[in-house]
Every structure is written in structure tokens, then in C-alpha cells.
């Protein structure tokens, strides 16, 4: 049986880096500042122990990678005056890391810690929602989405964002992940209906939540039988009326403020977990280099684009597969569709 994801061999790594990969595949937002970034390499699958490398010329990076065919390549999200010493911090990209293997509210049935096309599709949905928030609410223009091999990275390079300290990034993260509870006052004062700002982000995340939530979740949230039925039978109406338009009347009869607050709280509890917050708050992190091979899963970290439609169109099983695995992945995908994944997508 062919596999969608699998570890690749040393020989296959060599194949990829000598035949397929060129340094020109590294996105220009990294190539142009390469001399200001720290690069890290994992040569054997035990983590990036070869750190604090600097390449003043992209061709030097190309030579080094061709020569070593590393297990994984990382570059700093920070720019430094002296990247080799990690000194003279000039700023860092703002990063959101969505890992498909850690997502709550899964729609698929395999064991946790693995990914399938459905989890990846969910991660993509979250990446797209996040892109919208970053552009519309924060007015950001220099945002890039990258398929990381097992999820998505959003990387922001607008000047003012590069300068933010960890505390400011925490606040941005709390906003983007709708981590703060909606209160009774927010409901009563109708702030939850606002067409922009925190409450719109909250409703966006709530939409993702309501489309995936099941009976067990709602029982544990403390809803009664009638309320649960009401919510589950009215998902499209809630999405249409509440998520998109902010109308509280979209909730069915019997779901009053009390039940809504329980739902909202549960939604926030989950939406906090869509992102790996440590990545967002850390201003000196290293991140998988786009175009490099994710050797554990046999996929290529791939630049997706900066527009919603780029994300929408992106299919990792078409665009992020190294050539030496094309046939294998194609076959595995077919098998998966015929088997477990048939009705999920």
C-alpha cells in the first residue's frame, strides 16, 4: 500500500537536493535578507544542532545544502546585524503556526498525532481565516502563507510588525485566536454583533467551531438535550445569520444568553489551540525553510502565496510533493479517497 506521508531515506534526500532543489526556490522575502538571518540545519533527524550559520550569498547556501542534503533546514524569523552571534536584533517576522496534527475538533477518525487530507484541509481553512483577519483588521500587506509539510505558517513582514516585542505579539495572538471570553456584557450591549474588530474574529472562529462541534462537546459544555438538538440542526442558519451578519436571532429558540455564553466559552477554548502560541511570541525562533524537504513526512515546505485565492487553490498533494514521490502519493491519495476519506472532503 502506498503512503501519503512517510520518512524519506538519505538517498532520497540527496536526490531531492541535487536534482530538484535550487536556492532560487527559496521565497524572495527570505533570499533578499539571507545575510541577516541565522540558519540552522538538522543533519540526522535529531533536531537542528548545526546552528548560527550565516550565508552572505545565496549561492553559498546552495553549495552547502547540495553538499550535505540535510534532514531539515531552518532559518531565523529574526534579522540580526550579526546573525552568526544572534546579536543586534533588528526585528522579527510575526508568525502564526498551524499544525494539522495538533488540531482540536477533528473531523477524521485516525489516531491523534497523525495527519490526513481532512486535517490538512481544516488547517488550510484556519490559515485562510487568519489571512483575512491579518489583512482586514490589522491592515497588513506583506503576509505570506507557507505550507509547512504538516500544516501552515503565516509569516508577516510589514515594518511595524517586525518591531513588536513579545508582549505585543501576545496581544495580537489573543486577538487572532479569539482567545478571550465573550462576556454577558458583550452580549447585552450587542458588541458581539460588531462588523469589525475582536468580535468579528470571534464569530469567524465560532463558525469553524460550530461546523465541527458534536453532541459530546455540547454535553460537556453543559447544554441540555433540546439546546443541543437546536444547535446541531441549525448550523447553516447560525453560520449565515450569526457568523456572517452578527444576528443573535440566528440561534434557535431555547438557546438564550446563558447557553450562548457556554458555547462561546467552548469555542474560545478550542480556538486558542489552533495555533502554537510559543512560535508567535518567540522573537528569536527558527522556522522550517520554504522549499526545503520535510524528511519526516516526505513533503516539501512550499510557498503558497499571499492572497486568499492562493490559499484556496492550494493542494499540498499536487504542489508539495517531491518528484521522486509523485506516483506513490498519487496512488496513496486515490486509495485514501476510496477508503476512509471518501466522504470527508
Amino acid at each position, binding site marked *: 500500500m502506498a503512503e501519503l506521508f512517510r520518512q524519506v531515506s538519505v538517498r532520497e534526500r540527496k536526490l531531492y537536493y541535487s536534482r530538484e532543489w535550487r536556492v532560487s526556490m527559496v521565497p524572495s522575502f527570505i533570499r533578499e535578507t539571507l545575510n541577516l538571518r541565522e540558519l540552522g540545519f538538522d543533519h540526522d533527524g535529531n533536531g537542528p544542532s548545526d546552528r548560527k550559520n550565516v550565508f552572505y550569498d545565496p549561492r553559498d547556501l546552495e553549495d552547502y545544502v547540495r553538499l550535505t542534503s540535510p534532514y531539515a533546514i531552518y532559518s531565523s524569523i529574526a534579522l540580526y546585524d550579526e546573525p552568526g552571534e544572534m546579536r543586534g536584533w533588528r526585528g522579527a517576522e510575526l508568525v502564526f503556526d498551524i499544525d494539522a496534527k495538533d488540531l482540536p475538533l477533528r473531523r477524521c477518525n485516525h489516531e491523534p498525532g497523525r495527519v490526513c487530507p481532512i486535517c490538512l484541509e481544516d488547517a488550510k481553512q484556519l490559515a485562510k481565516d487568519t489571512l483575512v483577519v491579518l489583512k482586514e483588521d490589522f491592515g497588513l500587506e506583506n503576509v505570506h502563507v507557507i505550507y509547512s509539510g504538516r500544516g501552515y505558517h503565516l509569516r508577516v513582514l510589514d515594518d*511595524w510588525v517586525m518591531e513588536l516585542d513579545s508582549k505585543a505579539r501576545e496581544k*495580537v495572538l489573543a*486577538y487572532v485566536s479569539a482567545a478571550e471570553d465573550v462576556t454577558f456584557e458583550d452580549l447585552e*450591549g450587542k458588541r458581539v454583533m460588531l462588523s469589525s474588530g475582536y468580535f468579528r474574529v470571534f464569530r469567524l472562529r465560532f463558525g469553524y467551531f460550530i461546523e465541527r462541534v458534536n453532541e459530546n462537546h455540547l454535553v460537556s459544555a453543559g447544554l441540555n438535550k433540546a439546546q443541543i438538538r437546536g444547535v446541531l440542526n441549525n448550523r447553516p442558519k447560525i453560520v449565515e445569520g450569526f457568523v456572517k451578519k452578527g444576528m443573535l436571532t440566528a440561534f434557535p429558540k431555547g438557546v438564550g444568553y446563558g447557553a450562548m455564553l457556554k458555547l462561546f466559552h467552548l469555542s474560545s477554548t478550542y480556538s486558542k489551540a489552533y495555533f502554537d502560541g510559543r512560535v508567535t511570541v518567540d522573537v528569536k525562533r527558527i522556522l522550517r525553510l520554504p522549499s526545503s524537504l520535510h524528511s519526516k513526512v516526505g513533503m516539501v515546505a512550499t510557498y503558497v502565496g499571499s492572497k486568499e485565492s492562493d490559499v484556496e487553490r492550494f493542494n499540498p498533494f499536487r504542489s508539495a510533493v517531491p518528484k521522486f514521490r509523485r506516483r506513490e502519493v498519487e496512488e496513496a491519495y486515490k486509495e485514501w479517497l476510496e477508503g476512509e476519506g471518501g466522504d470527508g472532503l
Partner: protein
Amino acid sequence: MILDPFGGRAAEIIEEFGGLMKTLMIIPDYVDPDEVIKRVSWEDKPPDELIDMNDIEDVLGFYALLGALSIKPYGFEVEEVMKRNAEIYLHRIRLVGRFDGAAGIEAVGREDLPSRDAFILERRGLRGVTPEERENLRIAYRIHLSDFLKFWEGSLKDVYVRSGYAYLSKPQALEVWRGYFRRRFSEVLRSIEGLESEFYKGLNEKMGELIRKRAGSTLYTGSVKAQPLRFDLFPPCVRMALEGVPSGMRNYAITVLLTSFLSYARFCPNPSRKDVRLRDCVQSVREVEEEVVSVVIDAGNRCSPPLFEDQPNEIKNVWYHLGFGFTEKPSLDDSGSSVWYFPPNCDKIRANVPQLCNPDEFCRGIRNPLTYYLRRLFREKQRQGGDGAGTGAEGGGDG
């Protein structure tokens, strides 16, 4: 009229004098210390002469105070000078009804928001909102998020965010401005180095005297706030620490005893559980800074040699004992990063620094300095027949 001592017209004036350091050099020739002190000595509300004043005089007076603070850039004085001068400018801002671009705050009209959102934010659909309240809810300003994130202590949920801006009501804008003033004040203060002149030393002393006297009259007799500290009821060991101690005892007396005692006495006299955090008892870090840390710093610097001048890093240790982890500038969220240290028991104190313990009549049967304080507080209220410190005081934690 200058609305922002760090930008606009004020910055121009400083530029004309040849920059900040040059300005500080010429200030002694132009400025009368007694006039400058007036910027700090007012009560209740700044007097008219401070509101409507000549621009140059205003700028020189303000920077004269910063120069004087740079001699000892920490503690009570900094807080006081910052707060009172912020009020002078805020008073003017309220008077003219605009910010003149200070802190990057710009005015907007109602039409800049979708009308339904403006309707919701102003609570126009709701009854029982007075016109004045409504005026305070109206979105009147905006500020770019890059600035907002620097100056706002709260969360992004508190404000209306759209296209890279935070939209603000007037009270919110004033709060942002305060954050801006605080930040710029500290930055400028930190940038001033090596002012040795007699003028600034003299001004510093005058200012210190005034502020200590005032602090004495409010803090030591207490009753300004709901639960002010009653310094007169503190146990002998704490009082000794407050007065400053010799070098061998400094760290224990100040960082351990005083920090823990003041913070629990002020914010959580009867902890309901062992792992209580300061964030459960206060609204903002600022309260802790103003009511505990500044007193600790003051006492530390009354030691010989002054503790925090000697060991600038010790301030991080103070925050550590308050439960914020080893940090210099904590946020409320940091509370819980380390354990909020409970005041040590008397036998611990005697074991560590025997000189601190000089028991008086009330110390009999007492095992912890906090209990001493709570018991005396309780008796005091009983004696006055007041509604009091609450019956829980008697049992207050022997930790």
C-alpha cells in the same frame, strides 16, 4: 499651549536650544527652582498658572524636573513627578479638546465607522444611558495599531479594530495618552546621564523633601483609599526595614521581608488559599508598582549603601518575590510565574537577621509579622467602634 512635552512644539524648542543635553545645560541659567517645584507641589488640580504658561518656560520647567530626577531615577519621586506633570498636560488636552497628534492619536468623525457599529458602540439602542455617558462612548479618535500596542496596557478586545487602527472613545484616548506619556517619560529619563551640577542636586533634594512630606501625610496616617496601609501599626521589624538597614541585612530586610509583608498587607491580608497570585487581588501592575514596589525601592535606597544603586538587578528579585518571575518590567499575566512569597514567620526572621527583631508589647504570642499588623488593625477599628477591618483579621495567616 503645549500639549505634548515630547513632541511638536516642545521638540522644536529643544532643537532650537541644540538638543536635549544642551537644553539641560542651559536650564540652570534660566529657571528658578522654586517656580519649577510648583509643577509638583499642587494638590487636587493644577493651578491656572501651570495651565496657561509661556511655551519655553513650560518646556524648560518640565525638563528641569527630568534633569533633577536623573540624579536618582527611581522610586516614589519618579512616579509622583510623572503623574502630576501628566495631569498638567491632560488638563490642557481636555481644555482644548484635541491631542494635536500626540501619541499618534487622530480625531475621526462618526462617518468613519459603519453606522450600525457606531450605533452599537454608543449604546444608542439602550435605555438608561445618559447623554454624558453616551458622549464618553462615542468614537472620536483613532490610533495606528503599531502605537496602540505600545501604549495600551489592556487587550485588543477592549477597542474597535479596523484596517490597522484602534478606534477610541475619549476616555480610551486619554488612557492611551497616559501610556504614551509614561513610556516617553521613562525613555527620556533613562537617556539623561551625568548631570552633576549643584542646580539639579539642589532641585532633587527640594523635590524629594516635598514628596516625602506629602507621602508621609497621606500614607502614614492612612485613610485616602479603601485599604490604605497603616504604617503606624506595622511591627518593629518591618518599621526597621522601612527606615533602611546596614549592608549585611539589606537583601533580607528589603527584598524578602518588606516586599512580602507590604504586598500581602495591602492587597491580600487574608489569603484564602496557599497558591494565591497577585493578579487575583489587583487590577493592574501599576497598583503594585505604586503602592508596594516604590515603597520598597525607597526603603532600599535609605539603606547604606543604597540597595538598588548598588545592585540594580535586585529589583528583578523584588518582582520575583511578588510572583512575577525574575523580571524588570512585568505584565499582569506574568503574575504566577513564580511563587508570591508569604511574609516569613518571626522565628525565620530571627534566624536570618536577629537584629531586625526588637519585639514590643504587641509582639507577644505573635508568630508572623502580618498577623501582628492585622491584629493591631482589628483592635484599632474595634476601639474606634468602626465597621472595621473585618472579623477575619484576627486569624490572618501564620504562614
